[in-house]
């Protein structure tokens, strides 16, 4: 027999579910039904239609774009359970969360942890409303995987810092309003000389130059800072604390890049479906090519094991409190499997899966090609597979370097 408090909890849950349903009915524009998520791997220019704008504003008003963030900074203040119900109901209605990007995924959670009260009040609400776009100023041309080797300097000028240097791989730098940046405030110590600074992208002296990728897209920029004045209030944490804060942010990034959920969303059509369409089936409904069928099954088994691992990692970290070790495994395996799937997809489709542009190819075929090419970056950014292997070997397995 259910206890009284259980019954009450169930009532509350149902009441919340009903609240969400009503909200969606009243606010979600029919024309957006099943148009998918606004969250994409890398942000694009994204010009909003009026319907999209209205939906974003409605969600932003409630704070439901960032459902578990505190209400006082514009978040939804929901419990994890409520957030899950919100997601379920959005999915049922063919709706989506219109508020995403680096502000939501990386910068927001980090600022909530390390920012001052003023900083949170200033920066979190616009993220929660989806009004401000953030980009990441971490990588530099001579500091790839060796991130801490960064050279961009921030010189203390009393009331402001004077920033000079060059960043690269700034995702969406050409569309961003603000940049969270790692800068060097002290040359004498590699790690402790790094600080975490927030820079307006329209400040004088900031220039961006999009980088053309092999996929033909230009989602990243080189960003040049020439005598950029940044007010001191834009320093997060203390001077020299940037490396600690920056690494914490990378954990959020890694979780997002590898988490089963978001990876699954990125995966697109299932391989059996693609193969049915391009290779056909036999009389018993099996894929006509038994060897391909075997390879797809091989992939699906490993993909299932990966998703189970992501779930297990979430459960374990909830039960035991922050087991970050497995995040390197998830990043490494999830990105590898994503690339494998893309390679297998284009192989199944033959030349039809290698279209670059123009006639003869469907939009989804062309998008698949770009995704295959762009996906090559997933094992490089956010800590390359090689860096994850080093982390696993050294930190998790205790295989130390030769002294």
């Amino acid at each position, binding site marked *: 027999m259910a206890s009284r408090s259980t019954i009450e909890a169930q009532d509350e849950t149902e009441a919340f579910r009903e609240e969400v349903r009503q909200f969606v009915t009243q606010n979600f524009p029919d024309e957006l039904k099943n148009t998918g998520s606004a969250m994409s791997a890398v942000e694009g220019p994204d010009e909003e239609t009026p319907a999209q704008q209205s939906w974003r504003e409605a969600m932003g008003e409630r704070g439901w774009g960032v459902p578990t963030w505190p209400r006082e900074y514009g978040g939804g203040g929901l419990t994890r359970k409520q957030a899950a119900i919100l997601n379920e109901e959005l999915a049922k209605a063919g709706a989506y969360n219109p508020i995403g990007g680096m502000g939501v995924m990386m910068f927001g959670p980090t600022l909530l942890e390390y920012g001052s009260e003023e900083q949170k009040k200033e920066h979190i609400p616009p993220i929660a409303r989806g009004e401000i776009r953030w980009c990441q100023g971490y990588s530099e041309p001579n500091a790839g995987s060796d991130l801490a080797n960064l050279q961009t300097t921030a010189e203390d000028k009393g009331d402001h810092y004077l920033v000079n240097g060059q960043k690269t791989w700034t995702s969406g730098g050409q569309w961003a309003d603000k940049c969270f940046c790692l800068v060097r405030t002290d040359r004498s110590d590699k790690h402790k000389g790094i600080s975490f600074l927030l820079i307006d992208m329209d400040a004088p002296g900031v220039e961006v130059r999009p980088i053309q990728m092999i996929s033909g897209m230009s989602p990243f920029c080189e960003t040049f800072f020439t005598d950029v004045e940044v007010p001191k209030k834009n320093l997060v944490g203390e001077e020299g604390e940037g490396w600690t804060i920056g690494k914490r942010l990378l954990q959020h990034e890694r979780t997002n890049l590898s988490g089963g959920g978001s990876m699954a969303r990125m995966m697109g059509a299932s391989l059996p479906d693609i193969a049915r369409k391009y290779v056909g089936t036999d009389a018993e409904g099996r894929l006509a090519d038994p060897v391909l069928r075997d390879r797809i099954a091989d992939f699906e088994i490993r993909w*299932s094991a990966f998703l*189970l691992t992501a779930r297990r990692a979430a459960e*374990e970290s909830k039960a035991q409190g922050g087991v970050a070790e497995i995040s390197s495994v998830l990043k*490494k395996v999830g990105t590898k499997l994503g690339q494998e799937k893309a390679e297998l997809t284009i192989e199944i489709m033959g030349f039809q899966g290698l279209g670059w542009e123009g006639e003869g190819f469907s939009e989804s075929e062309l998008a698949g090609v770009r995704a295959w090419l762009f996906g090559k970056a997933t094992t490089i950014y956010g800590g390359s597979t090689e860096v994850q292997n080093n982390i696993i070997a050294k930190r*998790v397995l205790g295989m130390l370097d030769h002294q």
Partner: protein
Amino acid sequence: MAVLSEEQEMLRDMARDWTTNESPVAEWRKVRAGGEAQAYDPAAYAAMAEMGWTGVVVPEEHGGSDFGWLSAGLVIEELGKTLTASPLASSIVAASAIILGGSEEQKAKWLPQLAAGEVVGALAVDERPRHDPAAIETQVSGGKLTGTKAFVHEAHGADLFVVVAQDGLYLVKKGEGVTLSDRKLTDQRSHAEVKFDGAVADTLKGGGDDLLDQVLDRARIVTACEMLGMAQQVFDTTLDYLKQRVQFNQVLATFQALQHRMADLFADLALMRSAVEGGLQALDSGFGVPRAAMVAKAEANRVLNAMSREGIQLHGGIGMTDEYDVGLYLKRARVLEASYGNIAFCRNRIASLGGY
């Protein structure tokens, strides 16, 4: 590691203590040296029964603890780590066949004895060298079962066989009409060809049309648990070895090429564990078992195969000697990989279950 209940943690710790202290690999070496076809120590099996492991999936009303499959898996994983020889996994699966398909009378008769470890059960399925439950020629007529099962695991110690015939599953007691011929495999454990020649057979009527699949899926998941223990142990042993062995004035563990290979194996092991535990959880929840069983066995096959190869290679020459344990794992690994579905079988079934 899955999140465990307090009860499960106690069970796991108990199993770990017992295997570490009472049944390390040296015990298996003793059994092997003894050369008995049965290839396990009855006293060890009695100890397992005393600790309640033989009844872990048997309902309380029939003398078991009904702790469930995740609990069973925890124990079997620990046994796998030290290569503890016993018909525990085999007998648990046989009991589950009766739980799923037996009449009340059959349950009342056999389950208490199986749970108490007084009767040992074994599964007799395949009639060919490769797992193929669709190729069964064994027939039953007038309550007498006739057919030959090619490689029955733990046949020597078994008292009761769960036998797959063309029209369903049957219980057959060892005795008249049942003949064993040894089939010594690389693991040097108990395997035999079992000939049934008009042996008295008692049908398992319950459990529905897919009773065979249900029982086989349990065998697959339980086998995968033992493989998980083995893979974990090979990994741990190899890591220890690399941290101790010096070559070119450097501890092997400091060589980056070896570090990255260990990182790969660590990731594979994580996937294998998730897949195997996912199988156990599916059995406990009753949801999605066929697919979960295939994912568990396929990943167990894939990862243990790689782990046993890399384990030898990373140990170098010493890993090739009988004196070191790692080779023993290799020789058991391939037997378990072939049991109840090799990787090709699993992929084929995953595709069929997925409707492609």
